[in-house]
């Protein structure tokens, strides 16, 4: 519906969008500003959009109360491994299901696709027993293995397959005539062309791992093994009351880096996701 709009309509649209923006933007603003308010001002009335007094010690206290740097590292390295692993396995499987003819391919694809019907919430009880048996409770293995092979990676495989199916076959045929093996064709020709789809898979997978909450609280109970989402809920005083400003400081440190990366690279982000959504 792209038409040139009259100034009145334009103003109305801007106004409408600004109002609609409040619940999207204000929580982040409130998180950041509250993280530097002294605890006595945290529930001040009327509410302060800008802190009337600043207290930056909250950030230091985050690290005193919990091994926050360690927890940050835990979340970061787990998300990195899950993202790279998912990209590798899903692009290989997606490529094979799309481009290579081999006996039983359709049947095996159906088997893998079944994974989409089975979110990890359904299998959390047996997963707990399996990892207990393998001695992997209170390790990061479950947080790596379950996403790399579970429903999110099946979705990634599906996305990659849809992408590779749409790829024209001539380039590959030329390479085959030149005697290139399948792996080289995949690595040199197909994969570089799949960058948009891979980018989307990377974003989805990273966010999924970064946000994981049920699995950590089921599999991990040692503070220095916690991931960030788990750690964020633990900033309470001796009576169980939330230490809001410290919690907001921890939340800010968790949310802000990803948010900044997104703002810098938002074009690739949004286009990659739109692309996957349409194909998927």
């Amino acid at each position, binding site marked *: 519906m792209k038409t040139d709009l009259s100034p009145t309509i334009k103003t109305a649209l801007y106004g409408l969008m600004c109002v609609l923006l409040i619940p999207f*933007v204000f929580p982040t603003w409130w998180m950041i500003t509250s993280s530097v308010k002294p605890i006595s001002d945290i529930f001040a009335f009327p509410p302060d959009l800008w802190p009337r007094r600043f207290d930056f010690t909250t950030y230091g206290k985050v690290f005193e109360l919990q091994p926050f740097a360690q927890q940050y590292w835990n979340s970061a390295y787990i998300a990195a491994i899950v993202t790279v692993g998912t990209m590798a396995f899903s692009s*290989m499987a997606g490529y094979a299901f799309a481009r290579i003819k*081999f006996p039983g391919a359709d049947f095996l694809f159906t088997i893998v696709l079944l994974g989409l019907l089975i979110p990890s*919430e359904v299998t959390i009880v*047996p997963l707990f027993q399996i990892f207990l048996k393998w001695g992997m409770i209170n390790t990061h293995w479950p947080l790596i293995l379950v996403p*790399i092979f579970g429903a999110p990676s099946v979705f990634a495989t599906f996305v990659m397959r849809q992408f590779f199916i749409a790829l024209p076959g001539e380039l590959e045929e030329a390479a085959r005539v030149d005697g290139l093996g399948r792996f080289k064709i995949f690595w040199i020709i197909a994969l570089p062309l799949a960058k948009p789809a891979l980018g989307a898979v990377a974003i989805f997978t990273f966010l999924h791992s970064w946000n994981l909450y049920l699995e950590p609280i089921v599999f991990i109970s040692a503070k220095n093994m916690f991931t960030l989402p788990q750690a964020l809920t633990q900033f309470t005083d001796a009576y169980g009351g939330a230490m809001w400003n410290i919690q907001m400081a921890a939340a800010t440190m968790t949310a802000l880096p990803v948010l900044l990366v997104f703002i810098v690279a*938002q074009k690739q982000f949004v286009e990659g996701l739109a692309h996957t959504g349409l194909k998927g």
Partner: protein
Amino acid sequence: MTTPPRPHPFWTIERRDAVAGYTFIAPQLIGTIVFVLIPLGLVFWYSLHEWNVLANTFTFKGAANYQHLLNDPALPQVLVASAIFSACLVVLNMTLAILLAVLLDQKLRGITVFRTLFFSPVVVSLVAWTIVWGFLLQNNGGINGFLQMFGITGPNWLRNSTTAMISVVVVQVFKNVGLNMILFLAALQGVPKELYEAARVDGASPFKQFRRITLPMISPTILLTSIITIVGSLQVFAQIAVLTQGGPGFSTTVLVYYLYQQAFQFHFFGYGSTLSILLFVIVAILTFAQWQLRKRIVFYEN
């Protein structure tokens, strides 16, 4: 071809392709079997047993857990809470996503800035987002503080069953509506412009154009995103655990949260597995139903 073909080579193209194919899919296939399909079999097996963790006994009970499922006085409340949550979430999410997509599709200066801002909660850590909302929704928190400035006394959002449900739905909608918004925006941009021009020549109002052209043309996207949104809504856990712990009463105890409580707080692994099977059946039925619908109501496919 530089080398002359040998007679009957063992490694024909087909054989080499088969080896490559199996090798390429092996990690994903084996991983899905080990970490998804075998656990699904196990969850069914567990659901037929009573499992006492403290006494370390694991006894076959047949359908006893399923019997318990039917007689569990809490279950109807849990299912109602899940249904309300999912229904409200999907309706709100889709409506808002389409509205935002239509707004962002207008030719306006600075529209990318708005797009970025509407999308930004998607990349904010889920638990961070939830904690901030929990903070805002405190009885003396930000939202009631601002309402007070206009002379309105807000409710204690998370301590009242109706407003607690509204809160968890709304927190989730604002977190993720950006994803659907982007999908709809891409779909809108794929609608041929000639259709609108023809409609304008015929004097169709913008609202009529939206109903008669836009909605049918983006119906595949509506269906796809509603599947993802509904299935996603059934998996909601962190928001409930952080904001309400299922309360007050059972008002926000959705199925996944109830399952978690039964299995990991009360250590009823057998009954927890039965609830998992129920969750699986619901997810599977919804997915199949949506795919059947897809054939009927979708205006066009690719």
